[in-house]
């Protein structure tokens, strides 16, 4: 069987990328602007908050606990050599609150919800439900996208707090049970280590990540083409793109915060 390869011009690829960036930017801007336009679908937003927030709780609890425990385990092995095992709390709290808590929660929620949004909206596109909604005089951006964006950003904020707390508990379990760190010492170290900028860094990120997850998921869903195969493709692309974007934005936000507040 002859294998035919279709050559694609680099200019066409660049045009497609530029168009995708333009459409994504428009969708994102529109989703934000719709918070100030009527009608605001509060019922849909609450439903999405339940699906995204409560639905993601088990996976966030599990990953929060595991990451905290692993962080404690890995740092303890190094600290023990210097007789500084009591500093576990400091390392776990800084690692969890400023970086790993928001990042891991963001990536988990991206895997679960960006795919869900892309497949749900993608199915609606290919079965003409989005067209039907427009034909019935309802703006799909207001009805479907804005509630998802609001709910994801809002719920990821609280999910991250839960993940941070469970990470600290996981770290405590390892530090106390395996390395004999005193309970009061562990928690006092944490209390004394964390300052405003750490908490601020750790809580601004989930809001941005939530925005990225929902807008990327909705963008890939709404731009689905090509039937059920297209829905599958959109779902995969949404998870990959949102995860990569989260990692990139995380780097730049961290850098920006260091630039504003200075290094510790």
């Amino acid at each position, binding site marked *: 069987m002859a294998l035919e390869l279709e050559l694609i011009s680099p200019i066409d690829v660049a045009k497609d990328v530029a168009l995708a960036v333009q459409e994504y930017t428009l969708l994102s801007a529109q989703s934000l602007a719709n918070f100030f336009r009527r*009608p605001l679908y509060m019922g849909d937003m609450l439903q999405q908050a339940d699906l995204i927030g409560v639905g993601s709780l088990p996976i966030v609890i599990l990953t929060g606990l595991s990451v905290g425990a692993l962080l404690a385990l890995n740092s303890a092995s190094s600290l023990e050599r210097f007789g500084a095992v009591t500093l576990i709390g400091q390392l776990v709290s800084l690692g969890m609150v400023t970086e790993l808590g928001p990042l891991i929660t963001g990536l988990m929620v991206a895997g679960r919800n960006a795919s869900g949004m892309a497949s749900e909206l993608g*199915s*609606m596109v290919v*079965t*003409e*439900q989005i*067209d*039907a*909604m*427009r*034909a*019935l*005089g*309802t*703006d799909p951006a207001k009805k479907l996208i804005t509630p998802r964006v609001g709910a994801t950003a809002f719920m990821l904020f609280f999910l991250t707090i839960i993940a941070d707390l469970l990470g600290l508990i996981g770290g405590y379990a390892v530090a106390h049970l395996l390395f004999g760190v005193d309970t009061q010492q562990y928690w006092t170290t944490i209390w004394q280590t964390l300052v405003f900028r750490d908490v601020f860094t750790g809580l601004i990120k989930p809001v941005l990540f939530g925005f990225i997850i929902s807008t990327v998921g909705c963008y890939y869903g709404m731009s689905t083409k090509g039937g059920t195969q297209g829905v599958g493709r959109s779902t995969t692309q949404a998870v990959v793109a949102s995860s990569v974007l989260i990692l990139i934005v995380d780097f730049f936000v961290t850098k920006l915060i260091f630039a504003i507040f200075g290094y510790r």
Partner: protein
Amino acid sequence: MSAPTLPSENSAAAVVSPSGHAIEFDNVSIAFDEKVVLDGISFQLAHGETKAIFGVAGSGKSTLLKLAIGLLRPDSGRIFVLGEEITHMSEQELFELRRRVGIVFQESALFDSLKVYENVAFRLMEEKIPPEEVERRVREALRFVELEQTYDMYPSELSGGMRRRVAIARAIITQPEVLLYDSPTGGLDPVTSNTIVELIVKQRDVYKTSALMVTHRLQDAFTMATHEFDKSSNRMVPLPKGKRGEVPMSFLILRDGKVIFDGDAQQLVNSRDDYIREYVS
């Protein structure tokens, strides 16, 4: 089959637009990825008239309907709906206009996560109509399509023909001035098709709704051209031979993106164009 009684009889139809037509296409063209789908087509749909649109698969019939409701924008030409030019309207302005236009999609396009009553009531709920009135009107619309028993069911629990009838109920619940049907009888058995044709004829004759109907089934359009809805017996009845030209029914055939025929049943049957004669035969 007899069709049941209807929602409110005070139809908003027959509002005369400045252009004098319910829908007017003026030299409209559209292409997708450099493939020209519609190439400078022009036609008018009079108020109260139903126009059946034919053409082979891929001839742009569904595209034409999506242009008529502003879901797609033409590359060139002008489109008037109820006297307003929609070609350059913003999406927000189109949302307002679409409240006066109903559409039945090819595959029904019901919201699969909503129950039948939520689907039919969608537009009313968006307009914040009181729940009691919503329920009354949904039940009336479902009774009209003889599916009141499906009120609490999900679309996935319905057959293809039932979904199509629910889609009609959703389209007519606000008694729009213009209805667009995309292959309403496609893929259905003859009995169900006849039920749907009767609903469309009733909408045409009782409510005087203007309609564009895309179809592959010539026999459906001929049935509509040779029958009228009799309100007293509440069913579709054949017209006497001498009155057949009186129903507001016309035919439009698309070929290679152009309109090759636009006229009534008699003109279609008498056409000398080889392609049309082959199509009709």
